[in-house]
């Protein structure tokens, strides 16, 4: 009985860790795509660097925001 409760608690913590990890994978993929496309765009049109950079930061902030929601939720759940 006690062992199963302890195991359940351990599983809950494991879930928090895995959740944060998955969120990070998603954000990594998203920001990687944004960064890659921005590099492509800058290579093609170096004169538009400023505008591209601003929009790149803006978009990656949105992606990052999503991931941070998940990570904050996991951080609050972990005991």
């Amino acid at each position, binding site marked *: 009985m006690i062992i199963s409760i302890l195991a359940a608690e351990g599983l809950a913590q494991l879930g928090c860790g895995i959740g944060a990890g998955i969120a990070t994978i998603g954000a990594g993929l998203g920001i990687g795509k944004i960064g890659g496309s921005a590099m492509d765009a800058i290579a093609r049109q170096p004169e538009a660097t*400023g505008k591209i950079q601003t929009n790149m930061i803006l978009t990656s*902030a949105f992606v990052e*925001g999503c991931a941070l929601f998940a990570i904050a939720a996991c951080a609050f759940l972990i005991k």
Partner: protein
Amino acid sequence: MKHFKSILLLLVAFLLIPVQHIHAEEAESKELDIPEIVLEHLADAYEWHIASYEGKHLSVPLPIIVRSENTGEWHFCTAHSLPEPFFFSEEHHGKIYERVGGEEVRPIDLSITKTVAQIWIVVIVLITIFLSCARWYKRHDAHSEAPKGFVGAIEMVVMMIHDDLIKSSIGEKHYKPYAPYLLTVFFFILTTNLIGLIPIFPAGANVTGNINITFFLAFCTMLAINIFANKEYWKEIFWPEVPLFLKAYPAPIMPVIELFGVITKPFALMIRLFANMMAGHAVILSFTCVIFLGWSMGVGYGIGLNTFSIIMLLFMNCLELLVAFVQAYVFTMLSAVFIGLAHKDHHAE
């Protein structure tokens, strides 16, 4: 040079604040509890802890101001001389609670905590910097000569935020009334982030990693977006250009989603700044704790882990310098973009 001297004087004045030794009440346990140490540094506190040595703690006392729920009296003291019905509640993260009868209630607590003191320090720093810069413009003709040195550097940052970020995000027509607010927010967040990275006393509190602070900043942005929004913005929310059955009867989904968006925009700002800064502080503190963990395991582990953790610490601190700037920049930019969205002139197809 004169301002440099006055800043130095200010720092010395802070160092002369009487520091006191407080004996530890219980014997320190030998076990290192790293999550405990990290969480303690991240949380707000009623005194500014500097160092501990053999059970003695060196800390700067901060004023505690509480109103008793029982008698209605205001108490003014430090953490060291907390009067009887009050106590630091362990189960409520060390906040002050009061015993009324058999119950524990939270009294009205207006204490100058570590975070508040740190904000005041940041405000003093900002006022010193900007008033001294403003004086240059009073004494010189900014149209015929350019500022040099420190004033020039500040002007460069201000112009970068003002022109590239605020003006281009909100638009030529409407940016003027919002520029002071957005510049203030940018420099407040930047200075707080940078000062939070300095580890010793008159700096180093985790201010922007405290969700109350970011909540307030995001709340101000929400007010700035919604109070002065134009007709187009509210029309987009309550009467967007979608089929009638989606916005009136039987399923008013679009207004609900749009209203939800009004709240989630500032909520995302709040969580982003909070999570980034808290995570940064937590990682740096964890690497610092690795040093002590290493030495507690033995000399060999100590030397090996020290090398590893100091390299990682340097790397993380450099990364955090970047993050400090990027987060201030992103907060200001997103605020400006959202304000700009509330001032659209015509419906963009």
